[in-house]
C-alpha cells in the first residue's frame, strides 16, 4: 500500500445557486482543484464523485459520465468516472474510494469530488428525497422525516443525560460564528441562543435553526501518491487514515438510539490505522446535519465521554481556540449541506487549515485534522485523518 497525499482543493460557494446547474458547479470545483494542484487533464487517471441523488434532485443519473464529459475529459481522454453513493456520506466515500485507488498503485492522479444540486425542486420535495436515506418502507411510510429521526435521538439524549435545548443551540451559534469567516459558507451571519430557541419548531426538540439547510454546492480534491506529491505542491497534506463502518438502516434497530455505533467503529478504526488518539487531533469537521448530531459525533469519536457533549460544547471547548475546534468551516449548519459534496468539503477545509491558509478561522499550529461524514441517521460513517507530516 502506498501513502497518499492531497495536492489540490476547491470548494464552490455554497448556497441557493439558481443561476447554475449541477454540471456548472462540479466543473467549477474540479477545474479549481486541478489548478490548485497544477495538474493537467492528461495526467488524470480517474474521477470519483459523491452524489446522493441526481435522480431525485435533477432527474439525472449517470453523473460520473456527465462530469467527465463537461470537464472535457471524456471525448478524447476517456477518463473513467464513477459515481459513489452512501446518502449524505457519498462525498466522504468518494474520497475513500479515491484513496483506495491511489494507495493500491492502480491509479496515480485521482480527482475525488462531490456535488449536489438540491434547489431545482421544492423544499418539500427535497425533504422527501433526503428521507430516502432512511428506511422508506418502515420509517418513511409512518411519517418519519429526517429532522424527526434526529429529534428522537435528541429527546432520548436529553432524557438520559440532561442535555438541554440551550446546549443544542450552542452548536448552531458556534458554527454560525465560524461560518462568518468562511467565504464559501451559505450563512455568514451571527445568531444567538435566543434566535435558535425562538425559531419555529420542526420536530420537537429541534428548531429550524437546529437543522442544516438545503444547499447547492460542489467540492473536489486531487489525490496523488505521497512519493510524487512534492512535484505538484510545497504543502501536500497526507492521508493518515481512511475508515468506514455500517450500522442498521433504521434508527429503531440500533443498539443505543443516542449512539451512532458506525461513528464509534469508524473512529476506532481510523485512530488504529493512523496510530493516533483523540487528543492528538488539532481540529475536526463532524457531520452536524442537526445540532444533536454534532454532540453525538464528538462523543462517539471519543473527544468527550458519552452524555457530556452538550456541557462540553456549552463551555466553549469546541470553538476555535478551545480544546478541540469542531467545524471551523461553519459545519453543515452554517456552511451548508449539499449532501454529496459535504464529505469532500470537510476534507478541503482540513487541508486549508493544515496548510495554514484558513485566514480568520485558522486554528493556530494545526498539524493533524479529522473528518467525519455520516449517511442517513447513522447507517454509514466515514472517517479520515490528515496530517502535515508524512
Amino acid at each position: 500500500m502506498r501513502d497518499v497525499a492531497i495536492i489540490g482543493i476547491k470548494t464552490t460557494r455554497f448556497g441557493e445557486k439558481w443561476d447554475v446547474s449541477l454540471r456548472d458547479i462540479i466543473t467549477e470545483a474540479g477545474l479549481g482543484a486541478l489548478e490548485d494542484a497544477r495538474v493537467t487533464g492528461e495526467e488524470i487517471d480517474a474521477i470519483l464523485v459523491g452524489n446522493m441523488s441526481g435522480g431525485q434532485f435533477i432527474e439525472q443519473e449517470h453523473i460520473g459520465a456527465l462530469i467527465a464529459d463537461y470537464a472535457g475529459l471524456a471525448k478524447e481522454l476517456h477518463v473513467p468516472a464513477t459515481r459513489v453513493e452512501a446518502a449524505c456520506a457519498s462525498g466522504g466515500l468518494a474520497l475513500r474510494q479515491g484513496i483506495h485507488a491511489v494507495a493500491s498503485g492502480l491509479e496515480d492522479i485521482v480527482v475525488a469530488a462531490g456535488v449536489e444540486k438540491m434547489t431545482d425542486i421544492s423544499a418539500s420535495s427535497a425533504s422527501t428525497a433526503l428521507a430516502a436515506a432512511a428506511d422508506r418502507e418502515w420509517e418513511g411510510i409512518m411519517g418519519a422525516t429526517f429532522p424527526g429521526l434526529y429529534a428522537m435521538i435528541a429527546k432520548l439524549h436529553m432524557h438520559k443525560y440532561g442535555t438541554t435545548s440551550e446546549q443544542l443551540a450552542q452548536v448552531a451559534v458556534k458554527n454560525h460564528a465560524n461560518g462568518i469567516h468562511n467565504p464559501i459558507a451559505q450563512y455568514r451571519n451571527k445568531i444567538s441562543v435566543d434566535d435558535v430557541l425562538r425559531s419555529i419548531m420542526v420536530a420537537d426538540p429541534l428548531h429550524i435553526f437546529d437543522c442544516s439547510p438545503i444547499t447547492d454546492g460542489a467540492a473536489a480534491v486531487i489525490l496523488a501518491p505521497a512519493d510524487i506529491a512534492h512535484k505538484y505542491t510545497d504543502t501536500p497534506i497526507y492521508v493518515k487514515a481512511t475508515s468506514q463502518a455500517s450500522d442498521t438502516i433504521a434508527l429503531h434497530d440500533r443498539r443505543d438510539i443516542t449512539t451512532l455505533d458506525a461513528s464509534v467503529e469508524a473512529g476506532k478504526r481510523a485512530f488504529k490505522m493512523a496510530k493516533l488518539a483523540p487528543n492528538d487531533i488539532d481540529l475536526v469537521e463532524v457531520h452536524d446535519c442537526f445540532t444533536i448530531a454534532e454532540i453525538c459525533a464528538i462523543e462517539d469519536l471519543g473527544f468527550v465521554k458519552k452524555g457530556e457533549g452538550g456541557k462540553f460544547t456549552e463551555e466553549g471547548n469546541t470553538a476555535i481556540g478551545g480544546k478541540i475546534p469542531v467545524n471551523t468551516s461553519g459545519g453543515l449548519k452554517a456552511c451548508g449541506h449539499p449532501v454529496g459534496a459535504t464529505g469532500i468539503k470537510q476534507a478541503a477545509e482540513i487541508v486549508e487549515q493544515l496548510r495554514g491558509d484558513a485566514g480568520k478561522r485558522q486554528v493556530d499550529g494545526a498539524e493533524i485534522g479529522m473528518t467525519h461524514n455520516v449517511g442517513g441517521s447513522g447507517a454509514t460513517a466515514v472517517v479520515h485523518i490528515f496530517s502535515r507530516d508524512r
Partner: protein
Amino acid sequence: MITMSVPRFWRKQVARYNLIGTHCTNCGAYYYPPRNMCPTCRRGGKLENFKFSGKGEILTYTVIHTAAEGFEKQTPYVLAIVKLEEGPSLTSQIIGDPASMKIGMKVRPVFRKLGQSGEKGMIYYGTKFVPE
C-alpha cells in the same frame, strides 16, 4: 409525497396489518419488521413467523410540526420508537395529546389509516399506537 407502489406495499401488508415479524428459534431473538436472515446467527439462524402482541413502551418520540410530504394535514403528530415487550423496536405514530407523551409510557396497537396516494390512489393502512 411518501408513497409506495401497490405491489411494494401489498407484499408486506400482512406484516403491517397484524404486526407479524420474525422469531429465530436458534438464538431466541425477535425481529420486526420481518427479516429473511437472522442478523445475529446469519446462516445458522432458524426463522419462523411470529405475531407480536403489540404491547410495548415509548423508547423515544418527537412531535412533528413540519410534516413529511403527504402528512401535512396531520400536524402536529407524534412519531415514536416503540419497544415491543418481546424485544424489537419499531417506528410508528402515537395517537393522543402530544403534550401528554412521555418516554417509558406504555402503549398498545391500533389499526389505522397511514396515508393515501392522492385523491383516487391507494389507501395505506397499518399499525399505530395509543397510550394504555
